[in-house]
């Protein structure tokens, strides 16, 4: 479905930006993606997200929607043809939102603390990282996706962070496959979907980004 007025303000390495791109791709919505520079935010970004001044921002017919999971819900409602990202049942919807919220509160920090950490502090961060993903693995269980048979909201919320797995494993010297094999299987399953494959950067690109970031911030 061609949409003439859908713009995404993005940063290619941002897991939050990837969520929005996956959701749009799932719905078959074409959009213009504009890359932001964190050191020099565009006047459009500052105008469209004056409160947080952060990407991603979805601009639909000139009107901004901010906060990635809020954007994903908006996409699901504004283009309400299949596939649906959130379940129909109110209880299942609340569960999906709960896990989206859990991911928001825990995963980014768990990931970042491992690849920016050093020594004993990093060991502690590795434990927290594994604990966080084991909780998610428990929730996934034997289902193909977090939502059940179909790829959905929680999968969209989580899968972008997996592009950081190579960085975490290399920096942290750990094997996610050994610790959370079901999660790794789920990642492979998700990567077979075109919406995911074309929205996630290559893990080596993320690794190069992480190295540059550490250099710039004196974290080597």
């Amino acid at each position, binding site marked *: 479905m061609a949409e003439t007025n859908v713009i995404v303000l993005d940063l290619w390495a941002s897991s939050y930006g990837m969520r929005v791109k996956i959701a749009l791709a799932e719905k078959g919505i074409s959009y213009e993606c504009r890359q932001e520079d964190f050191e020099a935010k565009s006047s459009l970004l500052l105008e469209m997200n004056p409160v947080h001044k952060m990407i991603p921002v979805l601009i639909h017919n000139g009107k901004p929607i901010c906060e990635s999971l809020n954007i994903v819900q908006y996409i699901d*409602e504004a283009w309400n043809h299949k596939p649906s990202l959130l379940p129909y*049942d109110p209880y299942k919807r609340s569960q999906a939102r*709960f896990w989206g919220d859990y991911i928001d509160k825990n995963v980014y920090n768990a990931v970042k603390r491992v690849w920016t950490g050093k020594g004993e502090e990093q060991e502690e961060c590795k434990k927290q990282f594994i604990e966080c993903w084991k909780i998610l693995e428990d929730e996934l269980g034997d289902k193909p996706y977090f939502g059940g048979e179909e790829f959905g909201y929680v999968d969209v919320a989580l899968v972008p962070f997996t592009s950081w797995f190579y960085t975490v494993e290399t920096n942290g010297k750990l094997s996610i496959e050994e610790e959370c094999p079901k999660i790794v299987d789920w990642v492979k399953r998700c990567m077979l979907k075109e919406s995911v494959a074309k929205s996630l950067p290559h893990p080596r690109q993320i690794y190069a980004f992480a190295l540059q970031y550490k250099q710039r911030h004196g974290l080597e």
Partner: protein
Amino acid sequence: MLTECFLSPIKGTVFLQNWFCFSSEFSIPSGDKVEVLDFWASPFCARVKIALEEKGVKHVDREEHDLFGGKSELLLKSNPIHQKVPVLLHNDRPLAESAIIVSYIDEAWPSNPLLPAIVYDRAQARFWADYIDKKVFEAGRNIWASNGEEREVATRDFIEVLKHLEEALGDKDYFGGDAFGYVDIIAIPHSAWFLAYEKLGAFKVEDHAPKISAWIKKCLQRESVAKVLPDPEKVYQFVLYFRKMSGLD
């Protein structure tokens, strides 16, 4: 078919209609058992209770008497991930995270909707609920859990947050417009803590955010809000007690 969305004649406006009302895929609640695992001073618990009151849903509130040392088995079983109140138990099925619970209440009991019908307006409502969630309680805590210069900085930061909310409210009666709704429910419980912040931070909300101040008075006239919110003086005493126990005084 559940999804009965249609494009209005106004370009770009999408209405959600009868999203959850008519379906055999899930049962519409009747004769429900509704319980709230609760704590009297918690603004997050208050959100849930106000939403239930607004919907006219009978509920039993189970007070957690010792959140800091002896959480109940029911709480730990119902919310193993966060081990926090509020928890809504709807026919024994647990739901956690207050803003998510309020959304659920709106969807499970669809009459008198709390969220707007227009999709874009719903996104705006969720955005402000998220902002309030991320900022208000923490900014307030930074005031009462600190002393000296740290507290001065915290007070300034809190006032910044108030100003954002003042701008979001604008000249409307409520955050959603003419009717009391989702964002109001998410925000109003925090007002019970404002006296504590004002006394400790030596400022008045009215001086920095007069529209918010007026909105609080308007909301307190609603039965659901007046019934649920604790006395701000009691909250202030609770904060002072907590400060003493934490060695801050």
